[in-house]
């Protein structure tokens, strides 16, 4: 494999890896505040992409369509928390899993009824000729994906480290009971978290839709890969989520290029799940995570 081909696979990997990173961040936000894994996370990504396509084809300029789509999905995330999660915040883990799984089924089917089965795409954010890096081409959208992902990651870091509200959210992650005793409104923090998580996921969906097509059924796969990324980096760590997302994207892309048996890209998705299973079975605390002490 030439350097040019190698770089091409690397750029493709970083691009899809960024979207996995954003999805993994969405998982991490909710998990840290509530201990819940939101199985509907991938559907938020899908809804973001499809909503942007609809708004754009409805006449809105691309920037407005992107912001509008994120806003719409944020509202969906808030409603999801209020209607489905809030009543079960203290229920068993099994009940919480089942509710978010049910929500993913409902959202996916609703999206199919609204948008149909066709895969759709957005135009690229900016029209310019692709760059050439050592012979490998980089389309402008890749730069958009990387830039906006970096921006979101930085914004989240600033929010969590520098603002009072962000610190309140982190306090809830450490110990909800103690946070409540200190007067932090736990319910509102959870609501905020679901809104933020949906917004991050939707942004990922909007960013990737110009590169890969989006359909009602795309969310399940993206969600599962986002979780694989979160697990790879160590569940609960935002930095790990980003690192895991990029690693997963690279592994996926390079394995398609390097491994002889995966000449057909049909196996590409299987690689992500194989990694998921391997990490879960061998090192469930993630590659970067610390093995936590067992509590009995």
């Amino acid at each position, binding site marked *: 494999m030439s350097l040019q081909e190698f770089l091409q696979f690397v750029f493709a990997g970083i691009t899809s890896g960024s979207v996995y990173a954003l999805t993994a961040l969405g998982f991490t936000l909710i998990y840290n505040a509530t201990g819940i894994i939101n199985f509907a996370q991938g559907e938020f990504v899908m809804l973001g992409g499809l909503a942007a396509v609809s708004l754009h084809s409805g006449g809105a300029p691309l920037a407005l369509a992107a912001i509008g789509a994120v806003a719409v999905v944020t509202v969906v995330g808030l409603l999801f928390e209020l209607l489905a999660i809030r009543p079960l915040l203290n229920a068993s*883990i099994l009940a919480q899993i089942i509710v978010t799984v049910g929500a993913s089924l409902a959202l996916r089917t609703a999206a199919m009824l609204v948008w149909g089965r066709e895969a759709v795409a957005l135009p690229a954010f900016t029209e310019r000729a692709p760059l050439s890096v050592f012979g490998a081409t980089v389309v402008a959208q890749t730069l958009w994906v990387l830039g906006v992902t970096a921006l979101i990651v930085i914004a989240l870091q600033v929010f969590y480290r520098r603002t009072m509200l962000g610190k309140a959210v982190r306090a809830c992650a450490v110990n909800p009971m103690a946070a409540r005793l200190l007067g932090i409104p736990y319910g509102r923090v959870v609501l905020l978290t679901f809104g933020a998580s949906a917004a991050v996921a939707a942004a990922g969906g909007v960013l990737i839709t110009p590169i890969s097509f989006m359909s009602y059924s795309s969310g399940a796969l993206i969600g599962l890969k986002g979780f694989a990324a979160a697990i790879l980096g160590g569940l609960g760590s935002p930095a790990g989520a980003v690192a895991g997302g990029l690693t997963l994207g690279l592994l996926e892309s390079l394995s398609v290029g390097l491994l002889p048996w995966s000449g057909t890209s049909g196996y590409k998705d299987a690689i992500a799940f194989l990694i998921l299973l391997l990490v879960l*079975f061998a090192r469930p605390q993630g590659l970067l995570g610390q093995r936590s002490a067992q509590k009995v």
Partner: protein
Amino acid sequence: MPRFGQGEGAESAAADAAVKPSEGGRGSDRDRGDRCGRGGAWGWASGNLAFLLFSLVALTMPLYLTNSYYLSILAFFAIRLMPTIGLNLLLGQAGQISLGHAAFIGLGAYGSALLTTRWGLDPWPAMFLAALLSALVAVVIGVPALRLKGHYLAMATLGFGEIVLILLIQLKGLTGGTDGVVGIPPLELGGWSLTDPRLFHVVVWSAALIMLRMALNLPRTRTGRALIALHRTEIAASSLGIDVAFHKLQVFVVSAVFASIAGSFLAHYVMFISPEGFGVTLSVLLVAGAVIGGLAGVWGAVWGAGLMVLLPEVLARYNEDYTLLAFGLLVIVVMIFLPEGLAGAPAKLRALRRTPPYTVASRTQAEPVEERGSECRS
């Protein structure tokens, strides 16, 4: 509500309330042990009577139901009932989730289809071998996966299901890819081909009823009691000498075999299979059905499977796609308002009539928030 039988209803509601202090509370799986393990001569006899009546009605259906369309719906009912019973045991009694059981249905269906069409085996041995293969796969995936808890187990099984689906599509030389397998022979019994819907009905329902009987018997066995114990608290169960890992694996393998046999029946019944039917959507639908039917007892599986077969028939008039939407929303509503599912609805209604829906006690009886990380591994 009709007024008759109120005295008896009140009594049993009171008895229920006494046995299950957290009825109406959110801790939906706290009292499950009492419900399942509540043996007693009366409970056993009434359970038996219900099973006998249900079997009688199910098996004699072809005598008075000659419409082959209705018979085919009932056949699909039985085929859906099998994996739902398995999931009911896995979720309800062992407290373990699987979002990959469609893969076992797929393994059964493809096992039967390929063994009969490619290697010329008879359908019954093919079904047996496919079930054996599914059991083997369940052991291989279950040993590492069942050490995981909660979300991790759900994701691992989801990933497993995706991998099986991808293999079914990509191994074109073996499985025919997205074209599927055609020309699967029908089942035969003593020289009779089971293409006759009435004959098939009796055979498929016999198999489903055997599974139902086995599942109903489970809480009275040593394994069943072990499952109830480990569902409540694995640590205490293992400290009492219960081999937690073994019993979890046992019920996982049994549920996989039930699903595989259902897949085999499906393949021999419709005589054509393609991979897309065995994806995550079916896995999720099965879990939703089991939950909506109710996990507190095995009969919930019958309610859930029935709903899974009937709801599409009702909604198909508008748009078949509404079925999945309805299931997604129903499962949320059931989890929030009816944690015991449809099977628990009559008792809930009785209790509603007698007592206010939520007492202060049941409102505040929420379980404490679980410690982070404790769900990671035992």
